[in-house]
């Protein structure tokens, strides 16, 4: 009796193992939901995150008013840019990331005394252009609203943390370290431009 039940159990186990359903354990097939997909897309895209960090560094060097302006404007313009990109489905052929690295890294390295109005324009442009690039090539669906919300949440968090960190820096050497970081971003942009030109 006992042997028979063991046999039945073993047979059931074998049948069970012969009919597996997909585990879907890997998140690149299932995703984490639109919101977190958007958030992760931003954090896993150095071509987006580095210019945002550069803008936040610049805002931090200039002061709290600039930080607040960047914090509000950049995510908003990014959000608009995403939808515009999805709507028009056109991606720029020039190396957007390299140009952003050069412009924003250069401004940080030079500790440029930009006006608040210039900061507004810069933040708006950065958000629109990079948002557009994120949105282009993505077909429209309602889940995109969540994905874009997650993406701009990432932008918001990075700007808030980085600019607040830099604003609090008091020692002169710390400001120099921020400018050195800007020069590294410029150098990366130059190399990126070379890579883009080599690829044609």
């Amino acid at each position, binding site marked *: 009796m006992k042997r028979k039940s063991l046999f039945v159990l073993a047979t059931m186990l074998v049948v069970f193992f012969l009919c597996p359903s997909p585990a879907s354990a890997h998140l690149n097939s299932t995703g984490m939901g639109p919101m977190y997909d958007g958030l992760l897309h931003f954090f896993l895209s150095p071509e987006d995150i580095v210019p945002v960090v550069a803008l936040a560094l610049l805002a931090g060097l200039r002061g709290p008013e600039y930080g607040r302006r960047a914090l509000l404007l950049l995510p908003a313009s990014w959000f608009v840019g995403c939808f515009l990109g999805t709507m028009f489905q056109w991606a720029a052929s020039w190396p957007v990331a390299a140009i952003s690295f050069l412009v924003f890294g250069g401004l940080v390295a030079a500790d440029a005394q930009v006006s608040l109005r210039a900061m507004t324009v810069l933040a708006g442009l950065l958000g629109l252009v990079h948002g557009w690039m994120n949105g282009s090539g993505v077909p429209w669906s309602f889940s995109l609203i969540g994905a874009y919300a997650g993406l701009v949440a990432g932008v918001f968090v990075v700007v808030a943390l980085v600019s607040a960190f830099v604003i609090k820096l008091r020692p002169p050497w710390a400001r120099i370290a921020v400018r050195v970081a800007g*020069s590294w971003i*410029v*150098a*990366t942009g*130059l190399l990126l431009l*070379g*890579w883009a*030109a080599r690829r044609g």
Partner: protein
Amino acid sequence: MTSAPRHAHLRSVAVLVLATQFSQVAEAHIRKGEASGFLSGVRHPISGLDHVLAMIAVGLWGAQLGAPAIWVLPVAFPMVMALGGMMGLLGIPLPGTEYGIAASMILLGGVVLLELKPPLWVAALLVSFFAIFHGHAHGTELPPGQDGLLYSMGFVCATGCLHGIGVSIGLVHRWTWGQLFLRLSGGFISAMGMYFLWKALV
């Protein structure tokens, strides 16, 4: 437990431990080219002693010169080096790259040895001039199929960190023994430059 099963158990554990020592890299969830791109970029500037010593010499000289050269030189070098790297990537030829790199070690080591203190613009110009050779060499040697952005980030970070090491070592300049140590280090770098020049010539 009798001794035979215990031995069998030990044998299994030993085999298991041995097996873990021969494990291969999984690389299960890395987007192709990405992680290796960044690490290749980090490895590239530190893979050649000539590059490493020249970059450390820049940091040492900056520390000897003091502010603002202590940060102007390490800022100028990576930016101009990236420009040289871009030239290399675009296939723009630069004759005598190896000689230029060796000469950079001789001269940068020499100025550290002699503790020369020229005007800031002269120092920046000298450092930038040699940075082009280093960057060009890196640009032409870049491996195909790597992630360009991550490679570049790793490359620039490693270069900057080498300058940082040079500047950190150079902080001993405040002590008399430190000044002597720095000058000796400059002499060593210069001598190594002569060795690399000799190697490039023969």
